[in-house]
């Protein structure tokens, strides 16, 4: 539970589902976003990265997904079954919830009957049953994020990337969505990589929390989170939870300077 150097964290028995090796990112405008970042996420692991804003956390996910190529270093991941939830729900406004959830499967060329079945299951998993025919403009912010989650679930992802997905929703909705993510994680056992700047969200969700430094970002600390799943909401008031949050907060303040 103490801060460990993150190199220690790479000793796992299974092959990693997602592996960053010496990844650096310098954008064409000269912004040095990431420096020599190396870490693995194994199947059944839920890793959250916290860090000051603008430290390159989102860039990490864009590189993992192949949306951006790193300037140097390499990423190993099977992108055929990759889920990715963005900061915004990015639903297509002209599609109903059902057709939005079907989108990724549709682009993947999964036959209509099969993707409809999967979409209905995913909608049920995120608790949007009854809203299949609604359009995005009729949904609240939290419900849009649920639809966005369901859209990725349809691909049965082995690796699930979350880019600060609940930053824009209110506290209560965020906690409910956190519960939702945990139950999905337990159900399908994907390897999760989650970005947030909320320490309590990070500790609550993860098996491991990585702290990133200010730009150019690199991992400066790693914390194992020992609490068993499923994690009840009261966990947030547990002294051990507070203690861990405090340590991460301390590291984060160090990372700012």
């Amino acid at each position, binding site marked *: 539970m103490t801060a460990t150097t993150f190199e220690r964290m790479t000793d796992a028995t299974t092959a990693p589902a997602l592996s960053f090796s010496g990844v650096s990112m310098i954008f064409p405008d000269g912004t040095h976003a990431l420096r020599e970042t190396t870490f693995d996420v194994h199947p059944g692991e839920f890793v959250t990265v916290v860090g000051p804003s603008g430290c390159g956390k989102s860039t990490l996910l864009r590189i993992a997904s192949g949306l951006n190529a790193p300037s140097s270093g390499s990423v190993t991941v099977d992108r055929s079954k990759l889920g990715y939830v*963005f900061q915004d729900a990015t639903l297509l406004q*002209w599609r109903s919830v059902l057709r939005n959830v079907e989108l*990724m499967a549709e682009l993947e060329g999964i036959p209509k009957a099969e993707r409809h079945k999967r979409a209905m299951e995913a909608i049920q998993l995120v608790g949007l049953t009854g809203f299949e025919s609604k359009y995005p403009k009729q949904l609240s912010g939290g419900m849009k994020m649920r639809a966005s989650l369901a859209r990725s679930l349809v691909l049965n992802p082995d690796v699930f990337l979350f880019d600060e997905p609940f930053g824009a929703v209110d506290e209560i909705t965020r906690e409910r969505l956190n519960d939702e993510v945990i139950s999905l994680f337990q159900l399908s056992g994907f390897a999760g990589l989650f970005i947030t700047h909320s320490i309590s969200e990070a500790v609550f969700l993860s098996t491991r929390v990585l702290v990133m430094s200010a730009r150019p970002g690199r991992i400066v600390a790693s914390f194992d989170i020992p609490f068993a799943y499923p994690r009840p909401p009261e966990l947030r008031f547990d002294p051990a939870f507070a203690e861990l949050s405090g340590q991460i907060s301390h590291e984060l303040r160090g990372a700012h300077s």
Partner: protein
Amino acid sequence: MSVTSTQADAVTALDVGPGADPDLVQELVRPNAPAKARFEWTRIIGPAIVFCCFIGVWEWMHRSGMRLLFDKPGFLLPSPATVVDISFTTALTRSNLLNGLKWTTVVALLGLGITIALGMSLAILMAQAKWAERSFYIYLVALQAIPVLAIVPIISSVFQEGGLKPRLFVCIMISIFPIVTNTLFGLTSADVGQHDLFTLRGASRWTRLWKLQFPAALPAIFTGFRISAGLSVIGAVVGEQFFRGGAMKGIGIVMEDYRQKNRYPQVYGGLLLAAALGIAVFLFFGWLSRRVVGHWYEASRKPT
């Protein structure tokens, strides 16, 4: 008790399917949710007042305005009652005008159809690459800047006659710009995050165009349709006045014939019909737009 009934009402009003999580339904019941559309007197009163003022000013112009303002006789602008009476209650005049309107409608709609096909194709082409946009755009602006009058002699020596072709040419020239610019704007309006989704799954250019850019562009495309529809009527009337030859005596020609005989009520009657045609196509595309995109498009207009 009251909470339960509110919630039940909300479910009915929101029309969610069976099995909806009541907490989520509650989430949707915002206090500022718009009430069901009620009949509003202001929707009638405003236009009615403006219409009365319009008729009033017209009548005044006929009785004294023309003389006071322009030192011209009042018969140059007949009163509204005279215009309606002479143009639309005498069978011969009415059929003359309506026959003219028919030909103008043919040219305007045909021209609009070609404009839409041509304009959208051009916009789709331009949306494919920045270089295409840069290369073509300047010509469109030039097209917009050239007065039709300036190229009438060229058009007439090319087409050698009156009739359909030169009129269509003028109609298209006048109405194409809004279609291209609105379609182009629409095609590039899908947000970056939505594009990322398609990139993630390695979508082809065609898939991206068809499933993302085109639907995202629809509201803007319909705005273009509405503007161009009005312009196509103008284009048709302008075209037939320059190219009067042929059997198709459009409303512009009929009006000009009447004017030469100093029969002004009929001229204004024709004007009203041409305006009505413009309004009709404009309203049609507004209706079509609401039918096609109304259920999902959220206009970013502030509630008044």
